[in-house]
């Protein structure tokens, strides 16, 4: 317990510094609302229900887009890894798409789907697709042939070999890809919501900012950042659990 306190003390110091700078007028209250006023606004937004409704709108989109991306991406990734010829065909395209900033897809989606709910989900889905496809693809390719051969010599047919050997062997790379996709999905969610949505955390931050409610803007920004952080931590727990055989 004491170690945790020592470890996070700099954060507390930073908050204290912030409060001091804001209260003392060193930095204008407009530009940097005090920690206390942000906290008050946070409480108000939660009590008033705006926080919850926007969080749920955002999370719904995130989970849908990410979930779809995981399912389609894994299948696609495994399929692309299935044979040497397919690999050779797919490799250059994957290499080219990898560095494409996925946020550049937002205007394309806007043209196709406008500004609604489905547009946000589509952005997240398409953006997450690539890291997951790459994870599944690299993971499937890395499955050692000796493992597959052992399974076959123990009587497994090719489908069983796929399920019992290749997919578990691909898991570390796939799960690493999902972690990247998770972080990316938050970025895409917030970006696309800021650009054109009627609900959601990205929208809320921009809306409050436009309306001059800076304390509220800070509060919402912190909330979604905290959610993103928590999601990553939660995912790490799942990741370590699924891969616990490695640590042992």
């Amino acid at each position, binding site marked *: 317990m004491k170690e945790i306190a020592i470890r996070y003390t700099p954060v507390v110091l930073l908050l204290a510094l912030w409060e001091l700078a804001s209260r003392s007028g060193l930095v204008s209250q407009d530009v940097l609302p005090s920690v206390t006023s942000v906290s008050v606004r946070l409480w108000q937004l939660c009590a008033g229900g705006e926080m919850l409704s926007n969080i749920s709108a955002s999370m719904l989109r995130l989970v849908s887009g990410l979930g779809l991306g995981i399912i389609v991406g894994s299948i696609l990734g495994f399929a692309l890894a299935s044979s040497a010829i397919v690999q050779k065909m797919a490799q250059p395209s994957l*290499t080219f798409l990898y560095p494409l*900033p996925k946020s550049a897809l937002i205007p394309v989606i806007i043209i196709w789907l406008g500004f609604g709910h489905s547009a946000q989900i589509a952005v997240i889905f398409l953006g997450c697709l690539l890291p997951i496809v790459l994870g599944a693809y690299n993971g499937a390719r890395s499955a050692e042939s000796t493992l597959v051969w052992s399974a076959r010599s123990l009587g497994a047919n090719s489908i069983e070999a796929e399920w019992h050997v290749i997919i578990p062997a691909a898991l570390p790379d796939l799960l690493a890809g999902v972690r990247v996709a998770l972080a990316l999905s938050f970025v895409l969610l917030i*970006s696309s919501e800021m650009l054109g949505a009627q609900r959601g955390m990205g929208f809320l931050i921009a809306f409050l900012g436009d309306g001059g409610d800076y304390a509220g803007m800070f509060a919402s920004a912190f909330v979604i950042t905290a959610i993103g952080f928590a999601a990553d931590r939660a995912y790490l727990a799942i990741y370590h659990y699924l891969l616990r055989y490695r640590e042992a």
Partner: protein
Amino acid sequence: MASGHRLMNILIGAILPLAIIALWEFATRERLVSSFLLPSFSRVVLRLWQDIVSGELFMLAGQTLLRLAISYSIAVIAGVVLGILMARVRFVRWMLDPIVSIGFPAPKIAFLPIFILWFGVFDTPKIAMAIVACIFPLIAGTWSGTQGVDKYLVWSAENLGATRREILVHVIFPAALPQVLTAMQVALPIAFIVVIVAEMLTGGNGLGGSMIEGARLADSARVFEDLIVIGLIGFAFLHGLQIFRRKILAWHPEVLQEKN
């Protein structure tokens, strides 16, 4: 026949993109898809050509690239320095560790409107946001690489008479380099994404600004044109970094294996 083999590989690899382009052109020509949603490939290429000739494209790309270059360079220098300090100075590690571990997975883009509030709508908030977003992997990667140097290498250098400064430069820096380069490769796409989003949000110029304007004005050819340009730039940068990595890490087993 190494060259015949390579040619074969290139041809096979080109099948997919060529098929997609062919499908694209076919779908729009046969009006299977409205030309608004998907302008024909030839129209996009034509537009691209026009904008290159008029210089418009260079101006847009130049703006985006300038912001990217500035923010990335600052982030790399600051990130590497902080990472080294974190590994060598306990106080710095204590101060930065919670900030890095909390900040790393957090979607910092949520602070973009706040940055705009602080810095206005021109270059500064875009550059600042990109720095904040991509500096975390640089700090973490440098820290990890510097810390994880094999103690036997340090001992060998000491044994052969090296001073503390010499060890830092001759041993610790080269040993950490692979991880620092990896962090640099991770940070570049992040900076790029953020600069583009920032440009979109502030409706400013640059490729991102042009794309969002195209979307708002229903000028789909422009949107696709910009998308292709952005894709090419991203690819060129990352490929360039990869080549740079192979040169600097010529001694590394991973590079030597690639050669075989």
